């Protein structure tokens, strides 16, 4: 292992890099000692830590026997308190040590072709007597799409390093400072004029919320995290007016925007990142609600919904919410309703306990196919107090805006809510929440 210090974009960082050419970068006592030393310096002096991970696993026979595993337990390895950002790039086969560090990191990048798993295929096949396919065991698709343990997948090692630098550019070097502001790319204010062409007026029609986000934030500033996992929720770092923000958005293109348990996990993990490193959160809601059903119940949806809203209330960074076309029930609350420093509703927004069309079925037992005229009349009655203005009159929404005003409203909110007395630094109450889910 090679460990040391360097600079990324003229900011100092600590780097812990595996050298696979030396005994397969297998985990050993001295390697552990070196890692602990560098991590300690990084935490005490405010440096992000970059792990370049490859590891054939624990070094055998050094770790065999009670003395071997006993020594592995010495010292403090696992108490992540997020004093500084950690990012892992998995660039080859990663079993044991480098996988553990990836799972404790704030971001995991995998180079396509790399493998990330608990144990090597040799150990796995001996233990389970099954033959092991590497990609199925821990390839980038599995880790990006099924588990969500990989945040970003890239084509080549150099792309991974560029992605490390890009991720760190949104964050402060340590939790005790605000994230750095960047220059605003030319043309960032123009594209929002087209947002009405992206978002269909009919709430039954879907669209890709990523296209709407692209025209709201600074040009080219979206950096997606877990883009291939739980796609109904979009989580991304971005900038508005040069200020880094963390975006959470429901995506109507997937599951109609109905949030599921995996989406909750993904969102919580992202909020932990934002809360730990003083990044304001903006939630964009366009959702029919949480995805109710047998599958959700079997997979603990109630506890995940509550974890999500608990995490949201615990975060102390500035929080904003934009209700786009609709937001119903508990999902309205989770997506920032009453839980934000400021909430804006598009003038088209529909907000209530549930979609009025669903309400007609539940309350009156009338289906659209049975009696379209009566159904329409009842839906109209149930949906009458659902408008953005109804939300704003009792001050549940602080603004009703035209969708084309979204960027301007967020610019103003970010300039006002700067947490000036603390220098933009939050309380980091989520900083010890487990990194993974």
């Amino acid at each position, binding site marked *: 292992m090679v460990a040391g210090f360097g600079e990324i974009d003229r900011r100092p960082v600590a780097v812990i890099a595996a050298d696979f050419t030396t005994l397969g970068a297998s985990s050993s006592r001295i390697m552990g000692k070196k890692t602990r030393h560098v991590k300690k310096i990084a935490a005490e002096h405010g440096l992000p830590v970059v792990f370049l991970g490859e590891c054939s696993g624990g070094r055998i026979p050094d770790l065999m026997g009670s003395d071997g595993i006993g020594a592995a337990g010495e010292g403090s390895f696992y108490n992540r308190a997020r004093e500084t950002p950690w990012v892992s790039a998995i660039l080859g086969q990663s079993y044991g040590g480098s996988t553990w560090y990836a799972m404790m990191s704030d971001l995991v990048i995998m180079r396509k072709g790399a493998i990330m798993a608990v144990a090597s295929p040799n150990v796995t096949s001996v233990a389970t007597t099954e033959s092991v396919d590497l990609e199925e065991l821990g390839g980038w698709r599995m880790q990006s799409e099924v588990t969500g343990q990989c945040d970003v997948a890239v084509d080549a090692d150099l792309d991974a390093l560029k992605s490390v630098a890009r991720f760190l550019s949104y964050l402060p070097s340590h939790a005790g400072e605000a994230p750095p502001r960047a220059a605003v790319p030319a043309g960032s204010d123009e594209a929002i004029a087209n947002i009405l062409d992206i978002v269909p007026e009919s709430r039954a029609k879907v669209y890709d919320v990523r296209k709407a986000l692209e025209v709201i934030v600074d040009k080219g500033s979206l950096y997606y995290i877990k883009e291939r996992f739980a796609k109904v929720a979009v989580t991304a770092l971005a900038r508005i007016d040069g200020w880094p923000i963390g975006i959470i958005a429901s995506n109507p293109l997937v599951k109609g925007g109905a949030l599921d348990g995996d989406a909750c996990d993904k969102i919580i993990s992202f909020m932990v990142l934002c809360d730990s490193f003083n990044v304001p959160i903006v939630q964009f809601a366009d959702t029919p609600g949480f995805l109710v059903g*047998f599958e959700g119940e079997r997979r603990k949806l109630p506890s995940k919904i509550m974890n999500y809203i608990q995490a949201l209330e615990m975060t102390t960074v500035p929080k904003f919410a934009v209700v786009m076309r609709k937001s119903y029930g508990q999902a309205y609350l989770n997506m920032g309703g009453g839980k934000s420093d400021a909430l804006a509703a598009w003038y088209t927004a529909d907000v209530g306990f549930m979609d009025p069309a669903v309400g007609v079925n539940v309350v009156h037992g009338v289906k659209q196919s049975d009696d379209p005229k009566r159904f329409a009349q009842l839906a109209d009655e149930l949906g009458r107090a659902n408008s953005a203005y109804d939300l704003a009159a009792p001050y549940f929404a602080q603004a009703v805006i035209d969708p084309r005003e979204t960027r301007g409203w967020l610019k103003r909110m970010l300039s006002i809510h700067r947490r000036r007395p603390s220098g933009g630094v939050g309380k980091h109450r989520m900083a010890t929440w487990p990194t993974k889910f």
Partner: protein
Amino acid sequence: MADIQVKSELAGKVWKIETKTGQALAEEDAIMILESMKMEIPVLAPRSGTLKDILVAEGDSVTEGQALAVLSV
């Protein structure tokens, strides 16, 4: 070439099938549209490939996880 099943991500009804077997698809192209949660929700190709088979018909009710189509990738 490998075959992968495209599964429904939620319970609903098949409203409209917009593709034909043998058709080439890009990742995230819509294969069919389901009606669920009072919305028209597309079933997207998980990756690019050729549509080998469609396993449901318009009007069918489907459950979460049910195979809807087969994609050769």
